[in-house]
């Protein structure tokens, strides 16, 4: 190519944010850039951020859809605190996302959208490209719309179709800028539009135009390169949290031999799990789209009664509806996995925004004494192992289990080392087939006679001759399971059910400390904040502080080795994306002065926020 080579600057990491109207295809653009980045072997984390409205009025700030992506040759733990490059397809996107861009960062702007109407829709009084408000940023104005139309002038497509291709111009340009290959996107376009060659060719053409624009244009003095990260050897794929949850459930079904029955009622962001699982029918997966969340969990419990792996997933409002049935699962002592993809609440709250909103509800949100194991996933890839473990515990202890994830985990993606099926924890299931009580010729099946180690009751599937029995919501007599209103029996049963759940602690692996094993501050986190917390620990260590962190997979029961770890630090800080939930649990369990750090904005933590809080705390 007759172009002069531009100097290449090697970066350890970078954060790019694609933003535009929800109709501009920003999620697709971001996803394709993420794919190309994964294939370039960077470590990466992504944060899609889309509007709650399906078709918000075009050009308005509430119709802005964004996809943020942090990638590096160094370990990447969060989608990035500060954006290095913002691609803004219109004024509204610039307005919404400018605050995320670091000072000195690059703004790649589609100037064609900055006409009077565009500015009005975004409620800009003056044009930010002209009024000096973007001083301090590196602004790269590009006529994206015009260039796309020029490139496709004789493509035979209409104006609207041509318009829809302009995201490919932006993508091509950014791929060039970060020295990413075009091939993965080309292949994807070829496949996606295999049946619509005209659209395919138009997209390909514009993609190349964008790429060449970078090569030939004076606007760019350098291009960047982010070298491959040093990841543990193995086979990798990019995975979103919902995909990982689905795979974890299928793996649990496969390894246990229990057919998977998944009952669900659509709700953001849990619907994607229903979509995902319903594609995998050839694994024997039964998906049931119920009439409401109560039916979804009821059907899952009914399937469990029949000897299937009964699973349901939902989000905050749906968890409220499932509460009574989860209590029935506690009482009937049947396995059940309830996945809650948390979002901002209360009520409908912030349906598309993330929040660690439901920990206390998961722990305590049932009437009566109804303890159950509560687990949390800490990264998109970790969702796989968390789902698998939730199923394993539910079956082993004959109990409902709540698994907490959130919108950020569900939609976020990261490179994931594909596990070897043989390496998954063993998951053997034994159904009762024989009476378990024999005395003086009295041979009976006692449905509440417990395993002495786990205190789990036997699982006898209907269809097993001789083990006919009844279970239900009324209090049970110990061992026989007959209805009992006996006062002492009730106390014994409440204690037994609690003890059974407490015994899960015996299986919790030793808690790993990230960072300093003792020192000034221990950060205690759970769920999706892991990346931000660990990134903050590294930064604080770099500032000379002795800081460590623990991240809890098990929230009930808590790991037994926590008190010994707490001993080793002066201060205990609990960062959470809520108004202080784990911190209350910890205070209750350990009677120590835990310090809360709370962010309740529907957004994940930035590592720098945690860093600043801890630095201040230590100084004070």
């Amino acid at each position, binding site marked *: 190519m007759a172009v002069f080579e531009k100097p290449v600057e*090697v970066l350890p990491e970078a954060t790019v944010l694609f933003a535009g109207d929800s109709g501009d295809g920003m999620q697709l653009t971001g996803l394709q850039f993420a*794919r190309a980045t*994964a*294939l370039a*072997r960077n470590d990466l984390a992504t944060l899609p951020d889309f509007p709650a409205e399906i078709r918000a009025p075009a050009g308005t700030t509430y119709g802005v859809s964004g996809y943020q992506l942090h990638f590096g*040759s*160094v370990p990447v733990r969060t989608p990035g605190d500060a954006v290095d490059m913002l691609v803004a397809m219109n004024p509204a996107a610039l307005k919404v996302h400018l605050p995320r861009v670091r000072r000195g960062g690059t703004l790649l702007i589609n100037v064609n959208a900055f006409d009077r109407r565009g500015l009005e829709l975004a409620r800009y009084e003056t044009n930010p490209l002209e009024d000096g408000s973007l001083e301090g940023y590196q602004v790269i104005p590009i006529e994206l719309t015009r260039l796309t139309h020029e490139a496709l002038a004789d493509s035979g497509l209409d104006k609207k179709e041509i318009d829809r291709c302009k995201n490919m111009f932006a993508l091509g340009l950014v791929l060039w800028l970060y020295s990413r290959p075009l091939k*993965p996107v080309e292949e994807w376009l070829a496949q996606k539009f295999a049946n619509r060659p005209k659209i395919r060719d138009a997209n390909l053409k514009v993609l190349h135009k964008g790429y060449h624009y970078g090569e030939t244009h004076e606007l760019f003095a350098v291009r960047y390169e982010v*070298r491959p990260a040093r*990841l543990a*050897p*193995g*086979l*990798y*794929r*990019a995975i979103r949290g919902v995909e990982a949850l689905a795979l974890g459930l*299928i793996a649990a079904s*496969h390894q246990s031999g229990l057919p998977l*029955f998944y009952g669900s009622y659509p709700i953001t962001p849990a619907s994607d799990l229903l979509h995902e699982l319903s594609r*995998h*029918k*050839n*694994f*024997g*997966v*039964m998906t*049931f789209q*119920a009439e*409401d969340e*109560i*039916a979804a969990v*009821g*059907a899952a*419990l*009914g*399937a*469990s*009664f*029949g*000897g299937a792996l009964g699973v349901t997933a939902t989000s905050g409002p749906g968890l409220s509806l499932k509460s*009574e*049935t989860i*209590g*029935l699962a506690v009482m009937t002592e049947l396995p059940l996995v309830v996945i809650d993809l948390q979002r901002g609440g209360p009520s409908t709250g912030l349906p598309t925004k993330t929040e660690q909103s439901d920990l206390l509800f998961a722990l305590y949100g049932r009437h009566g004494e109804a303890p159950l194991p509560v687990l949390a996933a800490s990264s998109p890839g970790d969702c796989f192992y968390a789902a698998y473990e939730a199923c394993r515990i539910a079956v082993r202890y004959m109990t409902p289990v709540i698994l907490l994830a959130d919108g950020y985990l569900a939609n976020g993606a990261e490179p994931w080392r*594909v*596990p070897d*099926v043989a390496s998954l924890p063993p998951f053997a299931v034994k159904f009762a*087939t024989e009476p378990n009580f024999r005395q003086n010729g009295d041979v009976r099946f006692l449905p509440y006679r417990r395993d002495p180690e786990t205190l789990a009751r036997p699982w006898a599937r*209907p*269809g*097993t*001759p001789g083990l*006919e*029995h*009844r*279970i*239900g*919501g*009324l209090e049970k007599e110990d061992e026989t399971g007959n*209805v009992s209103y006996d006062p002492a029996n009730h106390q014994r049963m409440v204690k037994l059910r609690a003890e059974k759940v407490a015994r899960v602690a015996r299986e919790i692996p030793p808690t790993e400390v990230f960072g300093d094993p003792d020192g000034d501050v221990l950060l205690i986190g759970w769920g999706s904040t892991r990346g931000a917390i660990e990134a903050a620990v590294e930064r604080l260590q770099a500032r000379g502080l002795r800081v460590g962190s623990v991240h809890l997979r098990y929230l009930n029961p808590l790991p037994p080795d926590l008190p010994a770890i707490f001993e080793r630090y002066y201060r205990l800080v609990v960062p959470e994306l809520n108004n202080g939930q784990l911190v209350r649990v910890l205070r209750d369990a350990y009677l120590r002065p835990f310090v809360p750090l709370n962010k309740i904005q529907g957004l994940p933590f930035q590592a720098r926020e945690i860093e600043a809080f801890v630095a201040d705390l230590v100084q004070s």
Partner: protein
Amino acid sequence: MSDSKRPEENTPRGTRPAMPPGARPAMPPGARPAMPPGAGPAMPPRSRPAMPPGAKPSGDGKPRLTRKDFASDQDVRWCPGCGDYAILATVQRLLPELDVPRENIVFISGIGCSSRFPYYMNTYGMHSIHGRAPAIATGLKASRPELDVWIITGDGDALSIGGNHLIHILRRNLNVQILLFNNQIYGLTKGQYSPTSEEGKITKSSPYGSIDHPFNPVALTLGADATFVARSMDRDTKHLQAMLRRAHDHRGAAFVEIYQNCNIFNDGAFFQFTERDTKPHRALFLEHGKPLVFDEGRKGIRLDGFRPEVIDLTDGRWSIDDCLVYDETNRELAQIMARIFFRPDLPQPFGVFYREKRPTYEDLLHRQIAEVTARKGKGDLQALLRSGDTWVIEPEPAEATE
């Protein structure tokens, strides 16, 4: 997958059965004779020898179970005189005749006096939570189609708190039996008006009379596209047993409304239909292919357009040939009969209002799984984990990072 019920022959919807009015169908459904006494050795209660799994009793010389084999060891705790007793006895009498291994039978109930039912049955069972039995049964039946699932529910359980689940299990058509014990009252909570209580009813929660308009359960379930809808009563156990047998024979969701007397909080709610002196002229028994007559043959029902009316068969003006011949596969007729609802001028219909053939949910579910599996091949977990774009990180990265 095997199935617990025998498929039922069905005439195509809307066609009149080719039978002269009044002719008896060769073998009316529900009138199957009980096994002759002594067909199997009588077994002492609760001493059924352990059989190898999968062994089926009866029909092949093996001992047949008796009513007592289906009674659990729990004391029945309904009020003395409650209509629930008769329903329990009828079910326990019917089950040994159904050729279903006892271990494959499951009773799922909600909450209410009626919903205590599973505790008294020596089968598998779950006494669940208020209104949710259809949801739980859906998961069970969908995942274990070979089980014979019975849902026991009350008027409050099925039509108030569980109304949503009821209509959805009907439209999905799972192959289960749904027995709604309608006593027009909340029994277990001690006597509030229910969604089937009549307007103006005086109860503890309606001391000045209920202002709620009641549901008509038969019309409601027909509206939800139920594939089998019947009504019976606790006081006519012969009819009840026939209806339950037919419900069981039906392949699909079979809904049976059972008028049940709550002698404590709503005594006599249905006496006009159930007691000897009024039953003949207040109750009308629908039978497929037969003319609609009642009052010991003295009266009949004819259609005047869409309007049913009583005709006198004794004064020579009308004859049996003028009576409407019932066709339980005719949806429109079913709707007309369903709307005869506590009308002083017309007798209340009992029997099978409607049935149709429609694929069951569990069949469709498993057929789809089988089809997808045939097309895509049986799932390979390792391959699934590896799907999508993958890349390999070698143990010693050639291009070291700086």
